[in-house]
């Protein structure tokens, strides 16, 4: 594992990957486990009593169907939030964290291009998030029988999970880029958290306010869940938008990191 910057990044993250993956999978399954208690006429009637606007804002319009339920629980808030925080941790640490700790000094005195450090760390982040996604997918698949949401199907679960990984990767790349441009961990975290919250609000609240309607189109969250992959399957265009944005962020990270002075 200590053969390259990529291998060492994964080696360093091995405990984190395991811990976060288990946490995301556990939360996913626990949440999904409540589905049978939602799937009954009384609950459906109770939900209908809520104002439609509120349900829309909370993403709970279709809470009693399996796809709707998972889309507003495991794949609605907690799953993405955990995945985005995990991705942010990896992205911010990749350059800014190492730089603040003074660990880039010796590494960059070795015959390793700066762009290669950024790209290899981004690749390690992608692998880490893919592992977490894979574990979540398997856990959800196993839980789908007992928790009565089999009709979603393995294909749609996989589609939603892939799009979830792409969403997280985008925010990880944002942390990487902000850290590579500034060398500041705090600032990079601020950017990740700020953009994640604002774009989340843009996706859920934007459409309810006329002058902000456009904002949903620039929200990564829209390209994650707007096409309802749990109900409609893999949304290739949405996924491509997320992946392309991530790529652009990594390119920005490379350019920024190559240009500037490295702190002691």
């Amino acid at each position, binding site marked *: 594992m*200590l053969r390259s910057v990529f291998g060492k990044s994964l080696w360093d993250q091995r405990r984190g990957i395991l811990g976060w993956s288990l946490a995301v999978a556990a939360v996913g399954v626990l949440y999904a486990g409540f589905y049978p208690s939602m799937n009954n006429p009384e609950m459906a009637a109770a939900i209908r009593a809520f104002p439609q606007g509120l349900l829309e804002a909370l993403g709970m319009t279709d809470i009693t169907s399996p796809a709707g339920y998972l889309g507003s629980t495991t794949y609605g808030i907690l799953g993405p939030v955990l995945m985005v925080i995990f991705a942010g941790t990896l992205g911010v640490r990749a350059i800014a964290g190492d730089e603040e700790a003074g660990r880039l*000094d010796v590494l960059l005195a070795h015959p390793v291009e700066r762009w290669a450090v950024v790209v290899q760390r981004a690749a390690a982040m992608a692998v880490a998030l893919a592992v977490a996604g894979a574990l979540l997918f398997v856990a959800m698949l196993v839980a789908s029988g007992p928790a009565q949401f089999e009709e979603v199907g393995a294909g749609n679960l996989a589609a939603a999970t892939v799009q979830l990984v792409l969403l997280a990767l985008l925010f990880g790349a944002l942390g990487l880029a902000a850290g590579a441009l500034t060398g500041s961990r705090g600032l990079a975290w601020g950017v990740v958290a700020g953009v994640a919250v604002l774009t989340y609000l843009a996706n859920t609240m934007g459409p309810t306010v006329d002058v902000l309607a456009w904002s949903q189109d620039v929200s990564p969250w829209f390209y994650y869940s707007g096409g309802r992959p749990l109900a409609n399957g893999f949304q290739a265009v949405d996924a491509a938008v997320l992946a392309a944005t991530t790529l652009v962020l990594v390119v920005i990270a490379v350019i920024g990191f190559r240009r500037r002075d490295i702190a*002691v």
Partner: protein
Amino acid sequence: MTSIIETEQLTKFYGTHRGIVDVDLTVTEGEAFGFLGPNGAGKTTMIRTLLDHIRPTRGRARIFGIDTTEDPVAIHRRLGYLPGEFALYDKLTGGQTIEYFANLRGGVDRAYQQELMDRLEVDPSRRFREYSKGNKQKIGLVVALQHRPELLLLDEPTSGLDPLIQQEFYSVIREAKAEGRTVFMSSHILSEVERTCDRVAIIRDGRLVRVDRVGALRDMAHHTVEIRFTGAVPEAEFRSLPGVSDLVADDHVLRMRVTGGITPVVQAAARHELSDFVSREPTLEETFLAEYGQEPVAEEAAHGR
């Protein structure tokens, strides 16, 4: 002779404070070059600019004839670097740390790596954060040397080390030199540079004030001697001794500055009844003050070279 490091008006302004200004230097193949200056004079800035970790504000530097900003990786392949503060991966063991950097370089001779570890008595089994400062520096030195680099860049390699390990460092540096490698070493200790280097550049406030053979610095190396006599002060006996200057006598106490060996002073003092004898090597700051006074640095740089 081939020049290994060549800088032309190399200047780096660092945020609000000045780093280095108009540094012109040539370090030739096979020499050990000392970069001497008090703390904050710009030594680390110089080394980090040579590494292309920071980019010059103006001027340029070439190592092995390659511009440092153009192909730093080609340069890094052929040099070894030991920073003053060796911060690394806390959770890796010393052995893993050495292994990782060997892998990044590729083609490291394992037998030589092992030989270095044996010589420096590196214990590779502990986690990096558990090592003392001295042991971290030893691992850093193995990392810097294991690929037999043509050039060694050492930033204050012995600061904070105990004297025994310091001696080992000196012998490793002498050995590297004997094998024809070039050494560029920063330091704030005059005697250390005297012991290990052939030539020295003295930097103060970011500017070179002098570049010379180490031998020529001997006149800068001096002691401050203070002798307390039980009887009257025999001032006249000391006035004519070689190397003695700035003689001041007051009640029972004689103070002087001694350049070069202090033996004549000790012999003269031994003929009298003493209550105390103090000899002190001044800090580099004091030496600088004595040598260059406090005139503006710009002027000194002009005659310094």
